[in-house]
């Protein structure tokens, strides 16, 4: 006799557990349980995370001034933002290794002179028949070697930025030994000085970056926990001036010191910033993402649920959420303006699970 109601009860109960997407609540319930709803809004652009960033030249810079030898940077000849011609001097460095090369050059020059003198004398003597042809050949060889040595050193020095005039000054003893100059490989704007005066520069270091007319980039260090917000192609903006940037590159290695990743973004338009300038940049949620406060979210199994208000009560909706700071972002499944439960979610989950009386 009691079987039928029991079966019905069970059926309803099972249905309720599985097919449930609606919880019935009336005004009385809402009042009594102290439930609060709030409309869902797009996570506003201002609602982003602010981070400090540094303006940098584009990573694939068109030209670089590189110092082949290690040395100490003595002085700069151009300032950032200054246009230089090809071959213009950018910086002068002093280096022990360069000093040796220059000295070698001087020695090689002296040796060449000696070898030439020897050759001239020997040639006269051969013509006079005093010495053999073999001896003439020897001095010709010596002369050739000396010339080659000199030429080699010459080219090294030229790569080091010495000009003909410098070489002649060097031979004349009027050159400042041990210094060499880094010159601009092409006409461009000096965008970035990598070292300051007095700083030690290692071999093969980029001393200066030069820019064509490319747009500047911004380097930001983003705390690794925010990295899900970073999609290549995503957008950022500067806090002060509101310029927008597009995220171009992100580093997947995490820097040990700051526990952050480096992100490079390119300015979308021409901006008058110079490399090295500091800018506060705002990291935005994706466009159209909705901001969901943490108190509105309950978890069941692997699902995240929110309770969306409808005329009969609330609808249980599963969303896929991205954590952002103390809240979450939802990119789909919910529209702006829909009301979600922001206070009392634990109680509504209890109703969902069947705790308490049903009314």
């Amino acid at each position, binding site marked *: 006799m009691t079987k039928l109601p029991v079966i019905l009860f069970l059926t309803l109960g099972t249905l309720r557990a599985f097919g449930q997407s609606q919880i019935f609540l009336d005004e009385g319930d809402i009042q009594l349980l102290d439930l609060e709803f709030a409309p869902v809004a797009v996570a506003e652009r201002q609602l982003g995370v602010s981070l400090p960033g540094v303006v940098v030249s584009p990573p694939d810079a068109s030209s670089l001034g590189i110092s082949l030898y290690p040395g100490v940077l003595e002085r700069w000849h151009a300032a950032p933002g200054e246009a230089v011609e090809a071959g213009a001097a950018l910086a002068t460095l002093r280096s022990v290794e360069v000093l040796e090369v220059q000295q070698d050059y001087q020695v090689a020059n002296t040796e060449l002179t000696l070898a030439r003198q020897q050759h001239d004398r020997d040639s006269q003597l051969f013509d006079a028949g005093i010495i053999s042809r073999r001896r003439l050949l020897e001095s010709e060889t010596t002369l050739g070697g000396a010339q080659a040595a000199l030429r080699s050193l010459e080219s090294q020095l030229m790569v080091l930025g010495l000009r003909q005039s410098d070489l002649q000054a060097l031979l004349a003893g009027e050159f400042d030994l041990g210094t060499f100059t880094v010159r601009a490989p092409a006409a461009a704007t000096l965008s970035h000085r990598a070292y300051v005066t007095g700083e030690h520069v290692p071999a093969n270091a980029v001393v200066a970056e030069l820019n064509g007319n490319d747009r500047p980039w911004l380097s930001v260090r983003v705390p690794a926990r925010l990295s899900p917000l970073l999609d290549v192609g995503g957008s950022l903006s500067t806090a002060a001036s509101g310029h927008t940037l597009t995220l171009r590159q992100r580093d997947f290695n995490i820097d040990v010191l700051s*526990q952050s990743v480096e992100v490079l973004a390119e300015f979308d338009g021409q901006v008058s910033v110079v490399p090295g300038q500091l800018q506060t940049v705002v990291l935005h949620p994706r466009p159209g993402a909705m901001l969901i406060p943490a108190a509105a979210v309950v978890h069941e199994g692997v699902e995240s649920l929110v309770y969306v208000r409808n005329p009969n009560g609330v609808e249980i909706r599963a969303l896929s959420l991205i954590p952002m700071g103390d809240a979450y972002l939802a990119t789909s499944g919910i529209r702006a303006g829909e009301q979600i439960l922001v206070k009392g979610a634990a109680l509504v989950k209890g109703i969902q699970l069947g705790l308490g009386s049903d009314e």
Partner: protein
Amino acid sequence: MFTQLIQTALSQRLMTALLAVLLVGFGTNALLNLPIDAFPDISPTQVKIIIKAPGMTPEEVESLITQPIEVELLGIPDQAILRSISKYALSSITLDFDEGTDIYWARQQVSERIANVWDDLPGDISGGLAPMSTPLGDMFMFTVDNDELDLEEKRFLVDWVIRPALRTVPGVADVNALGGFVKTYQVKPRRDAMVRLGVDNDAIVMALSENNRNDGAGRLDQGEEALLVRVSGAIENLDDIRNILVETGNNIRVPMSEVADVSIGALERYGSVTADAEGEVVQALVIGLRGANAREVVSGVRSKMADIEQTLPAGTSLNIFYDRSILIEGAVSTVTRALLEAVVLVLVLLGVFLGSLRAALTAAFVLPLAALFTFLMMNSLDMSANLMSLGGLVIAIGMLVDSSIVIIENIVSALASQSPGKKRLPHLHIIYRAVKEVAVPVVSGIVIIIIVFLPLLTLEGLEGKLFRPVTLTIVFALLGSLVLSLTVIPALASYTLKADAHREPWLPRQLLNIYRPVLNVALARPLLPASIAGGLLVLTIVIFPLVGKTFMPTMDEGDIIIQLESIPSVNLDTSTNIVNMVEEAILEEVPEVVRVVSRTGSDEIGMDPMGLNETDIFLQLKPPEEWTVSSKAELEERLRTVMNRFRGFNYGFTQPIDMRVSEMLTGSRGDVAIKLFGDDLDALNANAQQIAAMVAGIEGAIDTVATLNEGAQYLQIELDRMRAGQLGLDAEALQQRLRAEVEGLRVGTVLEGTARVPLMILYDDVSGDGEEQMSNNFITFGEGSVMPLSELASINRVEGPVSISRESGRRFAVVRTNVEGRDLVGFVEDARNTLAESLDLPEGYFLEWGGEFENQQRAAARLTLVVPIALLLIALILFLTFRSIVQTLLVLSNIPFAMTGGLIALWATGEFLSVPASVGFIALLGIAVLNGVVLMSHFNHLRDKGLEITEVVRHGAQRRLRPVMMTATICAFGLVPLLLATGPGSEIQKPLAIVVIGGLISSTLLTLFLFPITYRRFVGNLPA
């Protein structure tokens, strides 16, 4: 044999008087020294083990801690039940021993076993045997309020000022502190600093633990004196901590302040206390020792509290909201009042029947003497005066005077029948004769009653513990009254009663005038009363199945507890808010509630390990006189209406002692507990929910609930051992580091005066999405290298059980329900049938029915066994007395007729057949037989004198009318106060009173009208 006793008592009256005086002296002394409590000690010999395992999930706790210990404990002899519950961070194992096992021996056995297995348990657990208390040990609770202090300071007060002071009170096992925040010295390492300086977690831990010591270095001799050297290195304040040096990766040391922020913090909370919808408060709970006298303990605590109240900061008040001694007072005063009322009634009736105040007083004199004798015996057996033992005394009042009534009545008759003018027999001789005449029937009658009660001593379990005191006090009182009636009372009567022939008093005369004609009619038409009697018997047989059967009426303790249960994954703050909401609603809508104090979660010791989603709401009620509702049941209805409006959490009603007793006996609360045994947690859960749904549909079911044992949210971190091993990181170090991250790691203690404040390492507060946070959590290695946790372990959010319960080594889930409006046994029958039809359990899964119901079954089984034995013993005694089978059977035939009245009375009043009612039936057996015995022996005597049989019964019955009426009415009226009592504890005695009074009515009537007929019919013509 008795004649000798009577003779001696009468001839040596002075010595008798002396003995009586001695009895009064010792008895009064015993009374004054008697410990007083509400309930007898009903706890079984039980040892509880509580182990805290911070951060471990229930499944881990079960497999790593609970199971190994259970296996170890299985070898202990004399054990009854092994139960355990594994919760988050807690394992609680309870071992019940057989009755009568010595508690100290039991504790020692358990202690030894645990020591054996301790090293095999995971590293950083703490705990052991719980304090030696009983579940009834929660005797006193109060909140500590002060507007100027915050929760942490109040908690500090309780932990370090109030608790130590109260623990010195004799009888206090411990003082439990709940609520508020526990102060800690907190060291929060900064990750970037750690990385930069190459400091890892272990370095910080070591620095803190090794730099916190005061030590003695020895002694130096200075001339003739000595100088004790003390190295003071203990931390005394925050700056001391900041200055501790920490080893860095570069082998230099830096002060702690470079690596961490040092401040005052608080321990991770496992519970909170709120009150009166005003937010959180701090509570203290006094736990009494096993066997302590509750009233003494409470008064000791109160006076100690008064002492320390002056030393507490200004504005502090200690507000008591539960005091066990009030219940005790109430229960004891209920019984005492009933006792006094009974005595007065008895006196009045005696006077009316005997027509002489002197005679009445003489007979009544047996009451105080027998009572004092009882107290003396109680004291020598170390029994306490409580609801049950004093209740036994009240029950016995009517029966106590029986023997002395019969004797005094006979004395008075004998003295009255001395015809004036004729030669007088010596006064003492008359008395002696009168006593001797009724001695044998009186003795056998009382012995029969005593024997009838003895089987009650064999009851087991809860009912045994409750009714043993009742039985013992009744037996003592009866023994005492018997001896006194044969000695002191006659001696006293010889002084107070004079031989004066006066007319029979008014009442007996009137009764006789009514009785005589009716008796004649009955003797003339014997079939008439016989058929009436037969009809009543048939009625009884018909009614019997209609009377509900239950275990024990619930005692109204005067306080109500509402238990809440929300979703298993709720956090403490939300739970606290929900409770606040409920408190507000209750205070607003139910004016009878004076104060509400709620406890959510667990306490520090772990004695009552509730989850964060479980709450006990204590309602302190106004005195019943001030209520607007008329009964407790109505009040509960009102509360239920309020609670039913809420949705999203489960609730149930209980009472303080009731809750603990059920928990203690069956491991769960509720009238009926259905235990489902099985292996798989999910299957157990699903089936339990099904069972709950089915049971809730049965008539009478109320507050049916299967605890939702799933849905607790866990973040499962599984270490990739290879990877971690490659990096030189072991699981334990990682675990320590993670614990330090989330909950805080205790690395030492700072002494603030007598207070011991924990020193903790705690990393940043993990906020936002937990899974995210953990994935990006950075673990530092020795040389300053860092790696996020997600590279070392897989991190997943899973749902899991809230707790895992086991009994006798098997997992189980439990469905609890209370029953209202019908009897327990009938309900269980229905439930059994429903489940048998509709429930389909997997193989290997089975049900066990427990709770109150289990008790009822056991009690019923025992009584069914024991009562026939009692009847056999009675038959034996009767045979020894009368030496005739026919006569024995005749007296025994009184019994069914006595039962008739009792059962009809039970049915008519709507009460159930419970253990007290059964005790009432047993008492009825004895009383019915007593009257039959007295009547029978008089008939026999008259027959011996040679009277004709009809005359024998006619004269005999008329002569014995007065004593029969006296014993019956006095016994009945002696129980009327119990029938009408309303204080706490009265519910338990009421069914007994109903049964006995009803039974007396029917048995007396039948004795007076049916017995003469049957005697005439069956005995009359036999040879003498």
